């Protein structure tokens, strides 16, 4: 019952905040990784290099598909902004469904920017089906295909270290975020600009993806405050011996 209430309240708040567009632009704290991504996008278009977005190997049929969906949202943004570049962005993934969705997302991004003719289906790639074969396949893209920035977003495991290392070897900056704790630690240690925790989900709001994305950030903050209050109240009640 509690789950239903949380979902219903979040959905109502999300819809309400989306339709009641803010009159003033939201004040967002700077996230260095996303500031760097802006620069990387501009650089990619200007000097004819490409962006490599690696979406991880998250299975959309599993419960932990949120990071994957957030990564697809980011890919859409990247495709729209860099579709007119000499070298189109390449998206690699380690899950067949995800690779199909990546192709579709890239195509939608090209359509939205009016450059549908430039879309190449082979830019959305399945690089391997197991964690390490996926990493091995994606490493070659970073090394061989004139990549100017490596964006790792989605569900990764420890294999993220191999991707970060391969980018480091060719002096390509890596920006990354994952919902996996091991991958987060690896990205913190290895990536130039890591996204920690929910920053991965906030990225689309920072990249001007629309009022719904800003609204969802507000909903996350509201729910976080509710949780903090519930945790504090629970601790206080425990100290008082109520339960």
């Amino acid at each position, binding site marked *: 019952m509690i789950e*239903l209430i*949380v*979902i219903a309240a*979040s*959905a109502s708040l*999300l819809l309400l905040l989306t339709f009641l567009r803010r009159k003033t632009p939201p004040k967002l704290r700077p996230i260095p990784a996303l500031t760097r991504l802006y620069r990387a996008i501009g650089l990619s278009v200007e000097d004819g290099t490409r962006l490599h977005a690696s979406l991880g190997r998250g*299975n959309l*049929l599993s419960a932990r598909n*949120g990071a994957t*969906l957030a990564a697809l*949202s980011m890919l859409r943004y990247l495709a729209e902004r860099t579709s007119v570049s000499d070298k189109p962005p390449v998206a690699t993934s380690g899950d*067949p*469904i995800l*690779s*199909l*969705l990546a*192709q579709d*997302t890239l*195509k*939608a991004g090209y*359509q*939205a920017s009016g450059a549908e003719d430039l879309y190449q*289906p*082979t830019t*959305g*790639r*399945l*690089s391997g089906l*197991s964690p*390490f*074969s996926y*990493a091995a396949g994606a490493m*070659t893209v970073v090394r*061989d295909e004139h990549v100017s920035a490596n964006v790792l977003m989605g569900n990764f495991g*420890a*294999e993220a*270290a*191999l991707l*970060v290392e391969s980018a*480091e070897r060719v002096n390509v900056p890596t920006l990354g975020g994952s*919902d996996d*704790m091991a991958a*987060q630690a*690896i990205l*913190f*240690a*290895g990536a130039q600009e890591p996204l*920690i*925790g*929910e920053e*991965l*989900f906030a990225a689309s709001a920072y990249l001007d993806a*629309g009022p719904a994305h800003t609204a*969802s*950030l507000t*909903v*996350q903050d509201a*729910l*976080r405050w509710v*949780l903090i209050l519930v945790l504090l109240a629970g601790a206080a009640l425990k100290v008082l011996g109520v339960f």
Partner: protein
Amino acid sequence: MHLLTAAVAVLIGLLVLAGYFVPALVGIQNLLLGWAMILAGAAALFGVFNLISVHGEKILRREKGTLYSALLIVALFATFVFALFLGPDHSAIQLLVNGIILPAEAALMAILTVTLLYAAMRLLRRRVDLMNIVFLATALLILVGSATLLPFGEIPLFGNLLRPWVNEVLSMGGARGILIGVALGTLTTGLRVLFAIDRPYGGK
């Protein structure tokens, strides 16, 4: 067409979600999830075609790494043909898996250990700030706490006091905080997809 796609996706999403709360809809939920599993199987086949087309294109354009792409395609077809005729449980196929694929993945895992160590060493060179120092100090503390001082067993203070405290109090608390953030992000992202605001299945 895009509207129809979105409507179907939203309807199916809502039905699957409702299945968790309305017992009468569990049958429909299972049916839809069953269909999704079949589609996932078909997607695996498309994924393999994608792999072949990407590497085939590399070979045709004589791009860097053509030899590896050719090797991949030959190995893929050889494995496919052998497995088709002999069956996946045949000893030759098992040998292929246990003799080539597993050692190759184990080798990558071994490289990972060195890679992580190198990344940790590089961390201070790139960004010297409080968080990085805390990160490395914690990693070092856990390593020392996990090590044994032969023949005396675990290192006093580190092994029996500091490591468990960092692991079970600090680390657990931080991890739960991060996971709560991830869960909230997943919830709002899921809702955006459910309301067709984000459409990973295409459309403007």
